[in-house]
């Protein structure tokens, strides 16, 4: 087992934990954190797997940088939506509340 494979396995484990949280947690912010954890796991897999003959490969590093930008954009959008949703409905989960008028 090389150290780069260790990174990849750690990434897979992070993905698993993130996925579990993403499905099981109900609070929207926690769901979002779980998504970020999963994202980090994917990036770790990407960088860890792609080391050939002990030499780091620049391509996945560039990809991960782009991936981080995309993840930040998605997280920012999600936070704005969740905040607004909380202001309008007072809820932190996606459950339908009975008192809300149906549209």
């Amino acid at each position, binding site marked *: 087992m090389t150290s780069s494979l260790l990174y990849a396995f750690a990434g897979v484990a992070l993905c698993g934990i993130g996925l579990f949280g*993403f499905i099981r947690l109900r609070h929207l912010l926690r769901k979002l954190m779980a998504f970020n954890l999963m994202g980090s796991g994917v990036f770790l897999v990407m960088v860890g797997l792609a080391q050939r003959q002990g030499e780091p490969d620049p391509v996945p590093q560039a990809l991960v940088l782009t991936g981080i930008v995309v993840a930040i954009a998605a997280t920012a959008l999600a936070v704005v939506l969740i905040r607004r949703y909380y202001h309008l409905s007072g809820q932190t989960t996606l459950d339908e509340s009975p008192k809300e008028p149906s549209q």
Partner: protein
Amino acid sequence: MTLWLMAGLLFTPLAWAVLTLLMDFRKGRVVTWLGMLVQLLVSLGLWAVVAGDGGFHYALGGWQAPLGIELRVDGLAVTFVLLTALVAAACGWHASIYLDPAKSWHRYFWPLYWFLWAGLNAVWLGGDLFNLYVGLELISLSAVGLVALGGQAAALRAAIRYLLAALLGSLAYLLGVALIYGQSGSLSLAGIARLTEQSGGDPGLAFALMLMMFGLALKTALFPLHRWLPPAHGIAKSPVSALLSALVVKASFYIAARLWLELGDELGSYALAQGMGLLGGTAVIWGSWRAFLQPKLKQVVAYSSVAQIGYLFLLFPLTWGASEAVSMQAQQGITLQVISHALAKAAMFLAAGNLIMSVGSNRVEALAGVSRFLPFSLFSFGLAGVSLMGLPPSGGFAAKWLLLQASLGSGQWWWLVVLLLGGLLSAGYVFRIYRASFVEDSDIDHFYHPPRSLEVIPMILALLSLGLGLAAESVLSIMALPFEEGGGV
């Protein structure tokens, strides 16, 4: 010439997104009209170039892959670029009249609209897995923004649900990309296809393909992963729903189809192909049945999208291990289905928006009597319905005819049941709307009449969808143009 066309195609949407961000709704509208004209002309020009000289690879800014962005401009891609230009221009034109300029937040419609367009073009032309991911994310984020635009709690709930589903789908796709890169050291679709052809099937790559298929199916709302779609498409503003149903779900399907056609033979299996087809078939029947039961007009149209998306997934069983001729028929049928559904569903959502605007309620029963006040919009709705049902001479008919022949040609007769039942059920939900609109004992006698131009746009789209069946030959001949291979590292 080609340089200018490519620059126009990719640069205009991004430039216009930034430009319109700085303006209010009215100025943004005028600027957008100009941009739509540029996009239409450029798409037509590129289409003409490819129709004349065949497809080509294009390295953006002269940078070669893997660090540069390599675009693959072939017949299928330019067909979809042109389709996007048509449908997006129609929806944008409709939105420019439909949205209320007095509401300050509507100015954000234009930047989101242009980012969406940029993402769509990037996906149709993308040649490597990672840039397809970036294009997909650009589409998802702007689509979620459009759903949430100015909405109340219910719209935000739908938008958040959509966002979470889209994010999970993208991560599954990205994990697949990471595994493929780790295994093969290549990101280009053509390069990976060459590698798998040499080395044969590999369980690691097959798992990566499964992950990507799962992510893309979630984004395309394949049954049983479709639950996010009806609330999001149902609650968005009508031009937005039209854009989402017509184009956005097709982008993720397009990537899945490209992956399958390049890698499916080596990495796929009979079980995977049949499984995808089975889910698609279930989506056709379940989605149509749910559409028949919905009390709200736009929910009917949204569930109809779930059903129509199901047909697309018949591509997987019909091309796996099939002969060249059958596989070609299936691909042509699916392409026609994508185009005709895009035109018909955009027409249907825009017409539904007009009907709702006119009666002031989104319930199906509220349509009573509207047939006398808004016959034109109702007629567009029906014409689009004809294409969804698959009656001749519509594009939907040509698509289903090709799929039917491909099913028989490959000996998979069971898909005939799906094709027949799907057509009957779609007739059911379209006629249900008609029945409601012809009820005369309504006590409402004041209907708001939407501006004439709002009624013309869905009619144009519906007529295009209907006429597609007659022009199918020429559309398909461009799509199947020979593509000069050899590019792609």
